[in-house]
């Protein structure tokens, strides 16, 4: 039941964002759109409640986590993404690469945290997540410029691969 309510409210919020500017009820919406949105959101919630809240764990409802997510998105993540693009530009122009697939152990426990970290890794400098060991939560990362010495170790040091991201993933998603 809780999954159904959460999914319905999410769907309704997205509907409201997409239909803003349709009238002047509460400045932005027309009443017909708002009522239609309720029905559509209930249908969507009934159909897809088992997909959005699969793990039956509602820790992401905590607003503190959303705030941390925003801080992360506009702070370290955006900075790393800008750096990543300058880095890709440098490698496109000069062609200097030393690629390899390394294994890291981010010490995360939940699926959501791992997904979050893998997406962050893909969009940040010189790294691309390739595969995941689902039993022990190891990530296999394609690294475009492997640091000298890291290829001999069993686990590459994640401070070189993805900086402080595992710490942020732990703060936000676990």
């Amino acid at each position, binding site marked *: 039941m809780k999954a159904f309510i959460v999914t319905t409210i999410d769907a309704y919020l997205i509907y409201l964002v997409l239909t*803003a500017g349709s009238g002047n009820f509460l400045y932005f919406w027309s009443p017909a759109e708002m009522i239609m949105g309720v029905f559509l959101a209930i249908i969507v919630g009934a159909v897809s409640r088992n997909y959005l809240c699969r793990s039956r764990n509602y820790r992401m409802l905590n607003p503190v986590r959303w705030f941390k997510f925003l801080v992360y998105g506009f702070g370290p993540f955006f900075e790393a993404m800008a750096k990543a693009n300058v880095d890709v530009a440098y490698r496109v122009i000069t062609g200097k690469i030393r690629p390899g697939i390394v*294994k890291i152990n981010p010490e995360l426990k939940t699926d959501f945290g791992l997904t979050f970290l893998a*997406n962050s890794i893909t969009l940040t400098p010189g790294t691309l*997540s390739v595969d995941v060991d689902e039993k022990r939560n190891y990530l296999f990362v394609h690294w475009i410029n492997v640091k000298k010495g890291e*290829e001999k170790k069993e686990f590459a040091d994640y401070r070189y691969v993805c900086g402080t991201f595992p710490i942020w993933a732990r703060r936000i998603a676990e």
Partner: protein
Amino acid sequence: MWTQYLIWIFLGIGLTFNGLGAIGLLRFPDVYTRLHAATKATTFGSIFTSLAVVTFAFTQLYLNGKMANLQLGLHTIVAIASLLLTNPVGAHAIARAAHRSGVKPEKAVVDKLAEVKK
């Protein structure tokens, strides 16, 4: 208005990085390095060209107050969010599929994943 210059800067950054992505796609030697160029550069570039549209929409909203501009801005923000969510997952899926279908990373100094498979 001064946001005109902001729009030009955003469009310039976006076009540059999209172009670098396309050129990197042609220049790099194997599928994984191509994915680096394609995913990072085109996601970043498309976000910037879309941010130019958002800036344009909110400038027009401020100037003439038509609700259509609010719709344009908000819908573009939703489009940016969907790009940010879907692009890295797609890249991850392609990389995994490439490795499982037997494409080896070229010139690689280390391949831990192939060692695990043996």
